[in-house]
C-alpha cells in the first residue's frame, strides 16, 4: 500500500525530516509509528499526502508513483486516503452532518447516496444524536469521531492518523482506537502516528520507530519501547 525507497527530505536550514528512509507497508496492515517529536512522523504523513515532495527517493501509494503524479491528480490521491489529525480539522461552521457530507460532495457523490451514507457512518461512530451539532458544541472525543467518520465515509483503502488521541482523555482514546481497528478489519490499511505508550503496548501491532528521520526499528507485534527478547517475554 505504501512504499518508501531511500527517501530523503531536508527542510530549509539542514533540518532533517527523513533520512534514507525505506519501508513497505502492505495492504490491510495496521501500523503504529512511534518516536519523539521531530523524528519525522508528520513528515512521512505529509509525503504520503503529497503535501510535501521528497528531495530524493521514491514513494508509491496504492501503486501510484507520487513523483510522477501530476498536480491536478493530487486531489484524486487524497480522496483515496482518509486523514485524522490531532486537532481534528473540522470545518467550524458546518454541522457534524455537513462536515462528513463535505467529503462526499467533493467526490461528486449523488445527493441521495449522501443522505444514506452520512447517517450510517455517524451511527457507526456513535454520533447519531449529534448530527446537527456544530464542532464547538461537542467534546474533543466526539469531534475526533466526526473526523474519523469523515475520513472513512468514502471507504478509502488507506487511513492515516496523526496523533489521533493526542488531545483527548485516555478513556475516550480507547474508543477512537477501537474505531480504527474496526476500520482496519474492513480491509483498510491504517497507519497511526502516536505517543500513546499504553495503547501501543496493549495492541501489539507492527511498530515503526523513527528517530531523527531514520527508521530505527520495525517490529511485528511490537511495543512502544525497544525491549530485549527476555524482558519482552516477561511482559
Amino acid at each position, binding site marked *: 500500500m505504501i512504499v518508501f525507497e531511500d527517501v530523503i527530505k531536508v527542510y530549509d536550514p539542514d533540518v532533517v525530516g527523513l533520512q534514507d528512509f525505506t519501508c513497505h507497508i502492505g495492504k490491510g496492515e495496521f501500523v503504529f509509528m512511534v518516536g519523539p517529536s521531530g523524528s519525522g512522523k508528520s513528515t512521512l504523513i505529509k509525503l504520503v499526502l503529497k503535501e510535501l515532495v521528497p528531495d530524493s527517493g521514491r514513494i508509491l501509494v496504492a501503486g501510484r508513483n507520487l513523483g510522477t503524479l501530476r498536480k491536478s491528480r493530487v*486531489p484524486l490521491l487524497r480522496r483515496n486516503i482518509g486523514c485524522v489529525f490531532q486537532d481534528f480539522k473540522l470545518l467550524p461552521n458546518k454541522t457534524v452532518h455537513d462536515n462528513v457530507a*463535505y467529503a462526499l460532495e467533493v467526490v461528486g457523490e449523488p445527493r441521495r447516496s449522501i443522505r444514506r451514507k452520512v447517517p450510517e457512518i455517524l451511527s457507526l461512530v456513535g454520533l447519531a444524536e449529534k448530527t446537527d451539532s456544530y464542532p464547538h458544541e461537542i467534546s474533543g472525543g466526539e469531534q475526533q469521531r466526526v473526523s474519523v467518520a469523515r475520513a472513512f465515509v468514502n471507504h478509502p483503502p488507506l487511513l492515516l492518523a496523526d496523533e489521533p488521541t493526542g488531545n483527548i482523555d485516555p478513556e475516550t482514546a480507547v474508543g477512537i482506537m477501537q474505531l480504527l481497528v474496526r476500520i482496519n478489519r474492513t480491509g483498510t490499511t491504517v497507519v497511526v502516528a502516536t505517543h500513546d505508550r499504553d495503547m501501543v503496548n496493549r495492541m501489539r501491532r507492527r511498530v515503526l520507530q523513527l528517530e531523527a528521520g531514520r527508521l530505527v526499528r520495525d517490529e511485528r507485534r511490537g511495543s512502544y519501547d525497544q525491549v530485549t527478547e527476555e524482558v519482552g517475554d516477561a511482559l
Partner: protein
Amino acid sequence: MRFSFFLSEAFGSMRRNWVMAMAAVITVFISTAILGAVLVTRDNLNQGATSLKNRVMIEVFIKDAATPAQTQALERKIQGLPDVKSYKYISKEEALRRFRERFGERIVANLPINPLPASYEIQVKNADRVDAVAQQFFSDPSVDNDPGTHNGVKYAKETVRKMLGTISLIEKGMWVTTGIFAAAAVLLISTTVRLSIFARRREVEIMRLVGATNWFIRWPFVLEGFITGLVGAVLAAAFVWVGNWGIANWIQSSQIDFLSLRVFRMWWQGGTWPLGLMPTLAILGALLGAVGSLVALRRYLKT
C-alpha cells in the same frame, strides 16, 4: 459539479461572515459609485463639448457685384469641400429680415438701400478643421474681402481655438481620473477579498485535505465575490443614476439651460454608453468581485 451546492455554500458563508460581506459590498459600492460618477460626468462633458463644437460656423459674405455664375461657382466649391457638414444660403433679403428681427423696425426703416451682403453659412464636420475650411475662401474673387484682407470670411477663430484646447484638456483629465479610480477600485476590492479569505485559510486547507479539487474550492468563493460585487455595483449604479437625474432636473428647472445634462437610461440603450449605466457598472462590479476572489485565493491553492 453541482451548482446548487456551490451557491448554497456561497450564501451560507456570506450569512456567517456577514460583516465581511457587508464590508465588501460597501467597498464595491463606493469604488463603483465614484467610477460611475466620473464616467457619467465625462459623458456629460463630452456631450456639452460636442454640442458646442456643432455650433461653430463660418460665414462667407458675397460681394454685391458678384455675378450669379460666380455665386454658383462659390456654392460648388463649398459642396466640393469634404469637411463641410452643411451649408445654407442667406440672401440679402433674409439677412435684412434677421437684422430687423434683432435690432427693430426703426433702424431698418431709415435705410435707403439694403446694405447687408448675401452669405453662405457653413458648418464643418469637425471643429478642428474650421481654420482649414475658412482659408479656402480667403482669396476667392466672389467673396466680399476688403483689398489685402480676408474680412469677408468670419468665424470665431480664437474662441474655437480656446474651446478646443479646454475640451481636450478636460477630456484628458477625465481619462486620468477614470484610470486612477478604476485602479483604486481594483486595489480596494482585492484587499477586502484577501482579508476575508485570509480569515478562512484553515477552511481552504481542510478542503484540500479531503481531496477537493482547486476548482471545487474556488467556485463558492468566486460566486461569493460575484454576488457581492453585483449587489454593490447595482446599488452604486442606482445611486449615480438618481444623482445625475436629480442634477439634470434641477438644471432644467433653473435658467442655465445651456448646461443641459443628459439623463441616462438605466437599462440598455443605443447612446454613447452602449450598455447603459446599470449593466455597465453591474458587470464591472461582479467581475471585480469574482476576479478579486480568484486572485486572492491563488496563494492558498498552490501545490
